[in-house]
């Protein structure tokens, strides 16, 4: 009897679901001071910075040789193909000098003076110090040269014009390394340097205007260009702001992709795997300090829409979703939506679930996924994909339900929203 009482009841097979809280914090880091003791030479220091800037993420095709480029970045302006960064003389950057590399990162100009497209985030990299770009260059030059020619960009008219690009730069590009805020301490400034510069968090966590420019440093969140994912705001309590989090938890999310109440999913999981898990302790702490400060003084507001009275038909509609939840989701996320912290995220009160954009939640239901495997979470639990099992209408019902159960309040989701959330597999 006693034993029965303590054996947890687990129902297998039938009811399975997991919704990642789609906290998509993107960030990376570097060392401002070159005199860190753990880096014996410029090359290994540069290797660290290159990891933290996640250069490899874009400059490697799926399954390709690292840094040989060839990855296609689809945007509304055309398809950009990333170049080969290995020191091959003909197809890579083997003929480049330190100065050429600095010019590319700091000024957004190629070796021949051609203006670079901001798909390469020099708008952020311009904040990186000369010392750091030199170290990255030293590391890239130490790689084995791999001959690989990549196809040219395929950019739509009129965006393929260099003069238009010059105008764009005049409007939106401000050259200059990061200037420390003297009213803040060193840790905060280090975090700001990493988040705003090498980490290029703003490349995703901001809304781009019609000309593709991210115009602020406020990390306000936005649809990721060329990806069917929404990068939540890092400066709002309603989305992924971390003002009321403990620093340790922010550090854990950045470096392991999982905490008791949040998980990195989609592109953010990839950033954690490729880059952030390698942050030094000091840099992770610095980034967390800076990110926390973005919302520290914001007072909490209730997110989402408010239904003062729930109409009968609305309740019926949500009940249909509730039945699906019971069948497919409840075994992992619980009848109370509290999940199993660190394994199956809670859906009750989960900002990733109730934020305005339902996109990430819908995608998680459709595609499932695993958090990144990291040193601290080498064998993660996963969320099954339901695209194969549930119709669009059913996904809409179940997502509407979890956005409005257990005190959650958010807009309803339609089958059309589900259909639009498909495609764009990375």
């Amino acid at each position: 009897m006693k034993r029965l009482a303590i054996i947890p009841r687990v129902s297998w097979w039938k009811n399975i679901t997991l919704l990642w809280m789609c906290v998509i914090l993107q960030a990376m880091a570097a060392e401002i001071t070159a005199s860190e003791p753990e880096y014996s030479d410029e090359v290994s220091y540069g290797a660290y910075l290159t990891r933290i800037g996640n250069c490899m993420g874009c400059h490697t095709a799926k399954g390709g040789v690292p840094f040989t480029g060839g990855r296609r970045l689809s945007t509304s302006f055309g398809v950009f193909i990333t170049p080969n960064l290995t020191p091959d003389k003909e197809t890579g950057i083997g003929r480049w000098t330190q100065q050429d590399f600095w010019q590319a990162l700091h000024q957004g100009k190629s070796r021949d003076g051609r203006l670079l497209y901001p798909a390469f985030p020099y708008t952020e990299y311009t904040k990186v110090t000369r010392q750091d770009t030199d170290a990255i260059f030293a590391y890239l030059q130490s790689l084995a040269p791999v001959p690989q020619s990549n196809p040219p960009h395929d950019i739509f008219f009129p965006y393929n014009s260099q003069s238009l690009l010059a105008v764009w730069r005049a409007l939106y590009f401000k050259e200059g390394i990061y200037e420390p805020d003297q009213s803040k301490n060193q840790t905060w400034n280090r975090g700001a340097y990493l988040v705003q510069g090498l980490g290029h968090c703003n490349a995703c966590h901001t809304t781009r205007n019609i000309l593709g420019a991210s115009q602020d440093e406020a990390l306000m969140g936005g649809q990721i260009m060329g990806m069917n994912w929404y990068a939540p705001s890092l400066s709002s309590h309603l989305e992924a702001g971390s003002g009321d989090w403990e620093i340790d938890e922010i550090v854990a999310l950045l470096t392991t992709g999982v905490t008791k109440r949040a998980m990195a999913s989609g592109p953010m999981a990839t950033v954690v795997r490729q880059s952030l898990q390698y942050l030094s302790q000091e840099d992770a702490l610095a980034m967390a300090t800076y990110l926390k400060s973005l919302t520290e003084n914001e007072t909490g507001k209730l997110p989402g829409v408010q239904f003062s009275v729930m109409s009968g038909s609305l309740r019926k509609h949500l009940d249909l979703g509730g039945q699906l939840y019971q069948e497919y989701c409840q075994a992992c996320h619980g009848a109370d939506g509290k999940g199993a912290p660190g394994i199956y995220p809670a859906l009750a009160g989960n900002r990733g679930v109730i934020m305005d954009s339902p996109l990430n939640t819908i995608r998680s239901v459709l595609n499932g996924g695993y958090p990144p495997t990291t040193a601290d979470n080498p064998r993660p639990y996963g969320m099954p994909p339901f695209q194969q099992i549930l119709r669009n209408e059913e996904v809409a019902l179940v997502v509407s339900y979890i956005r409005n159960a257990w005190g959650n309040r958010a807009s309803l989701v339609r089958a059309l929203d589900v259909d639009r959330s498909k495609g764009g597999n990375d």
Partner: protein
Amino acid sequence: MRFILLLFFCITGVANVNGSTPAEVPDTMAERVKACTICHSAEDKVGRDAYYPRIAGKPQGYLFNQMRNFRDGRRYYPPMAILLENMSDEYLLEIAQYFSSLQLPYPDPERIQMQPEEIKLAEHLIYSGYPERDIPACSACHGDVLMGVEPAIPGLIGLPRAYITAQLGGWRNGGIMRGGKPDCMSAIAKQLTEDEVNAVAKWLANQSASGKPSSFDVLSSELIDRCSRTILENGGAE
């Protein structure tokens, strides 16, 4: 007695506090691979728009290679690529080990009518091949009982006809593996006629599964050489 009762209440009290959450999550591989088993169950499964082969009991290296192929874009199937996107080789190997060691009964074979000449054709391809057309016997690589060869060649028995036909069709069109050098199955499948594909698929689907994957040393050096990209390169790497 009073102590036991008290203890009992303590325990149930604790259990009730957590009672509404999904209790403790088992620290097992079975729990970790729920994302896989929703489609790949004990039997082959046909979903709304796709077909999901059984993966239990397949050679570990074969499963490991396929997962890496999906993840790294060599074998094209976005749902698998998304699921595996951020998984390390170490973890994929552990998952491959898990499914490989899973002993589940095979489904009954299909009962497809075949003409005697069709059976003859299928058996010739399976046990002799046509060396003059560069088609080796299926059994030369997939083992004399056609249950695969450790560590990286899959068995051919226990699969439905539709799956075998689809796979052979995929290889003929170059649609299973993309990029790089063509693999040996692609070259072989391109040699087969439509009739041959159909005969082999029917025949294989009609057999009942028995026995285990053969050991690596049954392979001839010539075939190892020909298929090295598929069966050796990182195959079953540990």
